[in-house]
């Protein structure tokens, strides 16, 4: 096994040979997740929390494509999440771009940034890859801090509240939390479909092969660097979409969105839920945010609980909540 492959990332076997319930779960995973997302706002204590789960779940899904399926531990995904959010906010607030175009622009800018950072970092392996992504994303953070005339600097980006959405002549009250949730959910559902599409595709088999054994994949005739770059960019695109949704939701972009602590949180969520599994990242985001919510009920020191749970997961449940459930169900 190549050294750069995380045993956590390699937690899940490939998909092609799955049988029975497992195959049915894979076939139905997009409709099932959309159903779960539809119910989500009615199961959680607040709609704002539901949107947060949606946004962070989506970031984790995007991140999982790289970490869980391609086996690359990036510590810089906050950059793409943030770039999507900033691009959307700036487009609406400073250039009056219609919201839908601003979403597309946010995805494009985040994806372009992912392509550039990917191009620079893909050449390194293992720990160095994590370090380069961390360093480059911190550069993005400090650049945003300095470029305050564009980004609002430490004060954050403001002044782009979308109160009403016009879709094909309909006008939707975007301040209504339920309507807002379902509009944003449509984008998340599309992204989930795309990720499922990628995982089902021949390219999905390639990145899994790279995760499993980079040397062997290269000897088999795969251009490993190029495949990693594509995976990195796709992953960045999805995180950027999550960023644009976050911007539309909160109507602000906090500078902290770009900080490496955000990257760390994305990693934690993905791992808690189960890297390398389709439902895992959403389960992880839900678990993380709920844990924060519930624990901060009885102590303001919620971080010690979150940190401890995370350590226990790394030690004993590296497949995460969902991955462990699957493995348990499969009787291993």
């Amino acid at each position, binding site marked *: 096994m190549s050294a750069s492959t995380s045993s956590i990332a390699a937690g899940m076997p490939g998909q092609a040979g799955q049988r029975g319930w497992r195959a049915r779960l894979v076939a139905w995973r997009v409709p099932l997740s959309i159903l779960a997302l539809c119910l989500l706002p009615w199961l959680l204590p607040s709609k704002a929390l539901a949107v947060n789960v949606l946004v962070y779940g989506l970031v984790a899904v995007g991140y999982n494509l790289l970490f869980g399926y391609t086996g690359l531990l990036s510590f810089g995904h906050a950059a793409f999440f943030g770039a999507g959010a900033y691009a959307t906010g700036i487009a609406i607030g400073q250039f009056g771009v219609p919201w839908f175009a601003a979403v597309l622009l946010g995805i494009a800018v985040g994806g372009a940034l992912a392509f550039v950072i990917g191009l620079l970092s893909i050449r390194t392996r293992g720990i160095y890859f994590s370090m380069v992504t961390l360093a480059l994303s911190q550069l993005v953070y400090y650049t945003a801090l300095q470029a305050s005339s564009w980004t609002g600097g430490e*004060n954050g980006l403001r002044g782009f509240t979308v109160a009403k959405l016009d879709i094909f002549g309909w006008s939707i009250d975007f*301040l209504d939390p339920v309507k807002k949730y379902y509009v944003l959910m449509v984008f998340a559902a599309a992204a989930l479909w795309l990720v499922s599409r990628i995982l089902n595709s021949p390219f999905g088999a390639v990145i899994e092969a790279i995760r499993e054994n980079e040397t062997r994949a290269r000897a088999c005739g795969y251009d490993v660097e190029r495949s990693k770059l594509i995976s990195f960019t796709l992953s960045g695109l999805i995180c950027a979409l999550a960023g644009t949704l976050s911007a539309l939701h909160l109507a602000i972009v906090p500078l902290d969105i770009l900080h490496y602590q955000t990257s760390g949180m994305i990693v934690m969520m993905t791992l808690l839920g189960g890297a390398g599994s389709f439902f895992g990242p959403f389960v992880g985001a839900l678990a993380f945010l709920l844990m924060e919510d519930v624990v901060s009920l009885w102590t303001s020191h919620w971080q010690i609980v979150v940190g401890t749970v995370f350590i226990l997961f790394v030690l004993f449940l590296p497949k995460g909540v969902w991955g462990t459930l699957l493995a348990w169900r499969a009787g291993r």
Partner: protein
Amino acid sequence: MTSQGSHSITRRGALAGLTAGTAALAMPALVRAQGETIRIGFPTPLTGPFAAEAKDQVKSAELAVKLVNDKGGIAGRKVELLVRDDKLNAGEAATRTLELIEKDKVHAIVGALSSAVQLAVNEVTRARSVIYVSISQSDTINEVKDFSRFTFHEALNPHMTTAAVAKHTFKQGSKVAYLVADYAYGHEMLRGFKRAQAALGATSVGEILHPFGAADYSTFMPRLRSMRPDILCICNFGRDQANAIKQAVDFGMNRQSKIVVPVLLHNQRLAIGPEAFEGVIGGANYYWGLEETIPSAKAFNDAFKAANSGAYPTDYGAYGFTGVYSLLLAMEKAGGTDTDKVIAALEALKYDAAKGPQHYRKCDHQSVQSVLVLESKKKAEMKNEADLFKVLASEPASEEILRSCSELGFPA
């Protein structure tokens, strides 16, 4: 009544021990308030570097609520404070504010400790026509771009603070060197000082911008020394300020120059100790020592000490009191929570919560109030643990130390 007192709406409270006492006091049996409870949302950073200030804010805000409830509430309605942890993160604060508005259906929001959090809350409340009383320092919120007719700025702003501090420290011909945090708040303070400096006939011998959140300032010291200033003006906040002052003293800057800061914080001074802060001059919205001259300060101190086993209120803590106090007073005058009526009442309000007369200026909703200029005491001069500062001056409430409405971009 506080957030800890009832069940479903109030899950995410502050520390239970902190509020349980007042909650019990605030619920006398059989006094059933008429009509719906008035709910005030209170986001504050219970976790993070300003947790101590945040906890003081919660205590003070709860005191303001208790005083009103003890008198029978507002138009027969009880007031409830819903405390939320914003983690000093603007995104988190926006989420909590959305929850407060959408789920808890609060009638108004008071709070925030950092400029970024305050602007985030402002953005959310402005779009949803919810009244917000901001208690964090910022010049930005006064400007027309971020103005919201629903938002009232109860805190000082950097402009007025620096004007007052400069007035009592800069002299004709003073040579001033500036060490400034390179972000909006730092720039605002520098701008304020330099305006005052021009008016007072002092000169700048140099300005150094330092990266926001730096831990080591040693590399700036040789250059600052070489400027040979009479006054070293350190324009940053919190931990940055503490580290910068301590290291300036290590480099012997305090022997050569007077160290001046825009804002002196009670808890920050406690965390760093008297040696490093000795002789440092800075501004403040409140200091408990004000009780010697101002009756409302005495009343506030006494009530606070009674409710918190003898602890003294602090500067940022007091914002919790003055902010909630002014809002509840306006609601009382408006006879309820009708947004337009409360806004009208706030605009017309004259109040003296704890530091003398205050009122909200009509154009930008800035609270016109006194600014204290404090000097940090020597260890030997301290009479007790809380006796930290000497009050050098109290710059009286006046619109003169504010930027004019037209300057802020408001139509004349």
